[in-house]
């Protein structure tokens, strides 16, 4: 039961509706999760755990943006701002009002979702590029609002974690669980009426409205849901770092998230995950690479390194867009097909 080449047949609807229909796929997924839950916390160094934590947060954020941009087709350049709103909300709730984390994180998600609905309002009237520019405006305005002394104080707000979650390993398990919930949630969401409606709006909004999909309502819903994910990601990020600063959530963060879902592959859940991992690891890999180079050349400047990072980041985006617009998800699938069909591939 590894290869479904001859077709997969089920005799009950329940079996047909499962997320992973093949026993092999279920086994693989369970093994993967077991490794993430049990083996990783045992073997990884604190630094590796921290990096994994940032990957998980990025994954949640990218899933949210992918829902909005990849599935519903509404381009947003304001995702970084939403993440910022979530981060600040949770940080303020916990550090100033003493709200427990279990309440502050969903609250941050809900508040950000409300804001997302507001920012999504122009989508009722405009679309495509004009909408993208409206979200750009939202990003700039949110940036500015977050930097006001009334919110940010002197620039940053503490985002403490309760004692139980203080060790990074404990927090890692929480983040992993939230991420898995986020993935399962979105996978199921897309199989419902809502998910199909979103895809219909993306592919042909006029046709969608003709067959009875309320376009405006679903666009707003997409904005709300995507911002909810962003808010949760932001809140978790804040508590990961222990403090939030308004400079973290500017336009470049939004661009990074766009890059994640594009490099990963628009409208694909594994794509969002691959993209989040790739874009978050890129600067780390470059730093290590430059570290080795530095050792060879003998002392370089950190300014040069960050410029090089910026350049390569842009280069990777451009290369992906021009060479493989369907992203890592597509590469992954081709790779799987190639391995599965080897040596009798039917494509020459």
């Amino acid at each position, binding site marked *: 039961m590894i290869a479904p080449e001859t077709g997969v047949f089920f005799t009950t609807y329940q079996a047909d509706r499962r997320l992973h229909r093949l026993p092999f796929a279920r086994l693989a997924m369970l093994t993967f999760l077991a490794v993430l839950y049990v083996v990783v916390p045992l073997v990884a160094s604190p630094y590796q755990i921290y990096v994994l934590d940032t990957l998980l947060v990025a994954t949640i954020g990218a899933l949210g943006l992918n829902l909005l941009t990849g599935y519903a087709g509404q381009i947003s350049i304001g995702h970084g701002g939403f993440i910022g709103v979530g981060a600040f909300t949770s940080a303020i709730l916990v550090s100033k009002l003493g709200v427990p984390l279990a309440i502050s994180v969903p609250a941050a998600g809900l508040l950000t979702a409300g804001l997302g609905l507001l920012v999504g309002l122009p989508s009722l009237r405009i679309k495509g590029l004009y909408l993208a520019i409206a979200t750009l405006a939202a990003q700039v*305005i949110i940036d500015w609002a977050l930097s006001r002394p009334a919110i940010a104080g002197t620039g940053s707000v503490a985002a403490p974690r309760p004692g139980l979650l203080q060790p990074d390993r404990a927090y890692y398990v929480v983040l992993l669980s939230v991420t898995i919930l986020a993935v399962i949630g979105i996978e199921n969401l897309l199989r419902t009426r809502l998910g199909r409606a979103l895809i219909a709006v993306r592919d042909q909004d006029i046709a969608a409205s003709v067959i009875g999909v309320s376009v405006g309502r679903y666009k707003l819903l997409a904005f709300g849901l995507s911002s909810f994910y962003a808010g949760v990601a932001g809140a978790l990020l804040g508590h990961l770092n222990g403090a939030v600063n308004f400079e973290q959530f500017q336009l470049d963060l939004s661009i990074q998230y766009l890059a994640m879902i594009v490099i990963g592959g628009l409208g694909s859940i594994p794509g969002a995950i691959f993209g989040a991992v790739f874009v978050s690891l890129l600067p780390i890999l470059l730093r290590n690479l430059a570290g080795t180079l530095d050792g060879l050349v003998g002392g370089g400047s950190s300014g040069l390194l960050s410029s090089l990072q910026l350049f390569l980041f842009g280069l990777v985006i451009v290369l992906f867009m021009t060479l493989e617009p369907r992203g890592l998800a597509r590469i992954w699938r081709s790779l799987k097909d190639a391995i599965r069909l080897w040596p009798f591939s039917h494509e020459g």
Partner: protein
Amino acid sequence: MDCLSLREPLFFASQLVTGLATGGVYALVALGLVLIYKASDVVNFAQGDLVMLGAYIGWALSAAGLPFPVAFGLTLGLAGLGGLLIERLVLRPMIGKPIIAMMIVTLGLSSMLRGLLFILAGTDVRRFADDLLPTLPLQLGPVQVSPIYLWALLIAAVAVICLGTFFRSSRQGIALRATADDQQAAMSMGIRISWAFALSWALSAAVAAAGGILLGTLTGVNFTLATVGLQVFPVVILGGLDSIPGAVVGGLLMGVLQNVASGYLDPCVGGGLKDVFPFFVLLAILLVKPYGLFGRVRIERV
């Protein structure tokens, strides 16, 4: 200064004149954006980086000892070549791709250009020599203006007239307009679409370089120049994304609105309004009149 207090008329006049003057630079940069959008339906998120590129080229040439007019002309030429190169390498493979792909590729281009300029030139502020343009402040009635702003206005005016004539009456310009209107129809009439795109990028990069040199003489040349690429989005939306006169009117109007609003309202909100106010205006326009003052309204019928 109290919030919302009435100021003397002179204050308003000075905000107005500064606004008009900044608006000239905005108009110039917005022109470049409109050019590319008109020809190829691409909104170039790297326009600010083209401005910065132009400023660096101009600075390098004039630092090499070339007289200013020569350096200026040469910069426009080099920037135009740069635009051609960018179009050929980055945008050409993207022809026919969806909007989001185009948008993201220009965002990537923006990172690339910025990173490249940092690597080559560092992040220090480079200054043009002081005697490039007459820098004595001019007295306009009771208000003092730096003449560079007037130069910007003048150059913007010249650029608009040239481009307007180019689009209205030259063969190439008409080809560009046809391409913008309907790519397939233009192709079947024997217009080389790829050439039209390349031309629009070259023109746009040259106009951006002119804006870059003007801004650079004003504030010094470093990476902050690229932020103007963001500031022109409200301008083009106000004027209409595909309208050349719109870019100019929008630029001037936005310059004035921005300066007047920040002059009067900044004390109420604790500053920083200058960079943000245009985006409030942008949202308002998008909700009320999405195609701006002069933009062509696209109507969808089922």
